[in-house]
Every structure is written in structure tokens, then in C-alpha cells.
């Protein structure tokens, strides 16, 4: 919540720079991807460090990421597009970076909705896990969205992409039969 509080403070003190709307959209987007990627590192961290603490924050971080995604999206819809539906649809269809952004949001929506304990029970742990694997796709779309809109400096999209790949790679390695065999042997 701190980034949001900081943005609010800066909004009222006029400290958002020459293009405040752009700053707000960029900063909320940045926190969304930061939190999303950080959330995906929690399970690996828990398993590697053999400490149950990190993974307990996973839902909270995921929901905060979604919170920033919502603000990010609302600013775009309201300020950039003035809630004009046909302009928004045109953007989604014609601008790949918006296509990817919108798809990322649509993937995160059901995940946010099914984040409660009740929902886990309703879906059953196996189905819930399968559904929530979509977070990797959503996060990837978020990185592509970012990559497609920078003019020349791909530093941060590349960084998030790399961390994301590492997190996903770790998961896949964990799931591989070879790895399971090695673990059983040890």
C-alpha cells in the first residue's frame, strides 16, 4: 500500500512531474509487475530456504499486484480514452502492447476472484492450482506489454522477464521426473 500512498501524497503536493497522468500510469504498472514477479518468487524461496514464511505472503502480494493493475487500467480507460468504448476496442485490436495488457488483466481477474479460502475449497486444491498456473501467463503478458511500449531502453522489461523465466524455470525443474528421481534417491 505504501507505493499507492506515496503516489497519492505526490498527487496532492504536485510532485508527479511534468506529465502526472503518465507518471501515475507508469508507476502503478511498474508496481504491478514488480509485485507479480515478487509473488512468483515466494514459493521457490520457501522451498529453497525451507522456511514456511515467504509463501504465506503470496496471496497478499498477488492481490496487491491486482490492485495496482486495476488502478493502472482504470487510468488508461478513463483519462487516456475517456471511457469511449469504440476507441478502447480499436486500441485493443490495433496496438499489440494494449492487446497483451488487456489479456494479462483478463487472466488475473479470475485469479483475484478465486483467491479466497472459500474459493480454494469450492474448486478443490487440484483445480485451484491448475487455474492459478495462469499467473505465469499473465505475468509474461505483462512483461511483453512493457517491452512493446518502451522506445529504446529495454532494461527493466528484460530484468522482469529474466526473473520471471527463472521462477518459471525453477517450477518446471521441480516438476520434472528427473528431478523427482534425484530427490527420491537423495
Amino acid at each position, binding site marked *: 500500500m505504501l507505493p499507492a500512498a506515496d503516489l497519492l501524497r505526490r498527487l496532492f503536493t504536485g510532485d508527479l*512531474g*511534468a506529465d502526472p*497522468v503518465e507518471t501515475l500510469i507508469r508507476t502503478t504498472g511498474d508496481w504491478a509487475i514488480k509485485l507479480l514477479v515478487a509473488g512468483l518468487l515466494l514459493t521457490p524461496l520457501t522451498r529453497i530456504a525451507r522456511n514456511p514464511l515467504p509463501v504465506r505472503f503470496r496471496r497478499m502480494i498477488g492481490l496487491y499486484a491486482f490492485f495496482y493493475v486495476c488502478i493502472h487500467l482504470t487510468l488508461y480507460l478513463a*483519462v487516456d480514452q475517456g471511457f469511449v468504448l469504440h476507441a478502447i476496442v480499436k486500441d485493443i485490436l490495433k496496438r499489440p502492447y494494449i492487446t497483451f495488457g488487456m489479456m494479462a488483466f483478463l487472466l488475473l481477474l479470475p485469479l483475484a476472484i478465486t483467491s479466497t479460502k472459500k474459493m480454494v475449497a469450492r474448486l478443490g486444491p487440484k483445480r485451484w492450482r491448475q487455474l492459478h498456473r495462469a499467473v505465469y501467463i499473465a505475468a509474461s503478458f505483462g512483461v511483453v506489454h512493457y517491452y512493446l*511500449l518502451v522506445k*529504446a531502453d529495454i532494461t527493466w522489461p528484460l530484468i522482469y522477464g529474466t526473473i520471471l523465466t527463472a521462477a518459471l524455470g525453477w517450477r518446471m525443474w521441480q516438476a520434472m521426473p528427473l528431478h523427482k528421481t534425484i530427490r527420491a534417491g537423495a
Partner: protein
Amino acid sequence: MLIGKKSDIASSEITPKSLWLDRRRFITGAAALGIGVAFPRQDANAAALKFTKSALSTKGEVLTPQKDVTGYNNFYEFGTDKSDPAAYAGAMKTRPWTVEISGEVKRPMTLGIEDILKLAPIEERIYRHRCVEAWSMVVPWNGFSLSALINRVEPTSKAKFVEFTTLADSKTMPGLLFPYVDWPYREGLRMDEAMHPLTTLAVGLYGETLENQNGAPLRLVVPWKYGFKGAKSIVRIRFLERQPATAWNTANPSEFGFYSNVNPEVDHPRWTQAKERRIGDFFRRPTLMFNGYGDQVASLYRGMDLKAFF
């Protein structure tokens, strides 16, 4: 006649030192290059300029506050954040400064900035400034028509294009380490575009000599084209027979054309150019053809397919 406003230098938006260093560490894995300190502005750059008002100024626009004009910049030689140029460009030495003029001209010469300042009476030219990123400002430039300089060097009939080269000093420009564009930054104009009265050699803004982040001590301003055509901190001007390679066009030919005329009907491949955010406004506004200078420049492109020659 001194009409200049009193210096309104607000504190620069300084990129936090740790943030700048971290970015580098990821990429190079090496210690930062010691560029962590925000350099103070050189006071030599804040000299007041005498100027007269120009008939070429654009009317009916609200000026963008000076702190935004000098604090929100794209000058990738100093970093890619909008606040980087104001924070780091202070390291650039703008005196002494010479501009080498050569190529298809009868009188090639090397001019010092002091000579350039005396080439023609300095005017205040208020122009719209439209970035390719779809934001815009209204800037009260101080300078004179580029044609004054061009007439001095007497281009031959072979001179069809003019090329401008920006300073590339690895000692003061950390951005040179990154291949955002093929350094040094080069831009170019067709001869008739360069001779057009609107095309300005700017040596100041808001009645003061240019700050480093705005392209001190002299830069190009071509108000009907996207802002990146306005090369900053010019050290060389060449007159050529053939169209020169330009920085952004070379870096990404499908996205940045040689002409880059402001055109709401020709979108950038990845984003639309139909609307822009005027700095200071909340909502976006429609972009104007030729940035609103169509009356004065459309004739230059009569018969030209502006989608093909974007």
C-alpha cells in the same frame, strides 16, 4: 531590449543515486562509472538573452512552464529517464564550443558559438513541440532561422540535404555506453526544409541561453516534425548530395522515418499518433497535421505519399 523573464530555476528532478547505480549494475555487472552525483548547473548557461518578438511565433497557445521545459527531457546521452538530462547534463562543457560546417558549400568554416550568436538578430519564437512519444509542449525558443547560417556558407547546387551531428563525449555522457542509437546522434533535413523560415537554430529559451539538458549551446528546432528531429548540442553541420543516415531511423527504420512530419493519420507501429498529451493537461487532445503548421509547410510535401515517406 531586455524582455527576458527573471530566472525561474526550480530544483532539478534528480534521479536517486541508488536507482541509477542499480540499473547499471544489472547490466554491466561492474561498478558504476562514478556518475552518481547530480551535477550543478553551470551558471554560464543561465545568461540572459536580448531578443525581439518574431512574427513567426505561434499564437493562442499556453506556454509550458519553464521548469517542465527544462526538467522533462529526452537526451539519451545522459540517461533514458525524463529527469536524467536535468540531473546529469551539467557535466557537459559548453565553452569553448565550435561548429564545423563543411560539405557541398563554397565557404566551409568552423564557427565559435560566440560568432553564431551574432549571425542574425535573436528572436523569441513560440512553437509547439511534439514528441514522437505523443506528448507535447509549447516552448518560447530564442534563436533565428537556420537559413541565416546556411546563406553564410553558400551551399552549392549539389547540396540537397543538411546533416547535423550532436556532441558525443564519453567522458560526460554515460548513455553512450548503451546502443540506444548509433552514436553520435545525427539528424538531417532536406535542403528546402532547412531553408524554411520556421526552421530555427535555437540558442536559448525563455529569454535565457539553453540549459545543457535542452541541447546547449545550440540546437535545431523544426516545429512541424517530431521532436527528435531537433538535434541538440550541435558540433557539426554538413551539406550533402544524398540523404544522410539519421539516428532513430537507423536504429529502427520501421518506426522512425527520415521525414517524421507530425501526422495524426500515420500511426507509429506500436502506438497511435492521433492524440497527444499536452504537458499540463489532464486529458489528451487531437494531434494536428504538421503540428498545426500545415499552412506554412504543407507545400513542401505536395504530391508526396506521407505514409511511404513517414
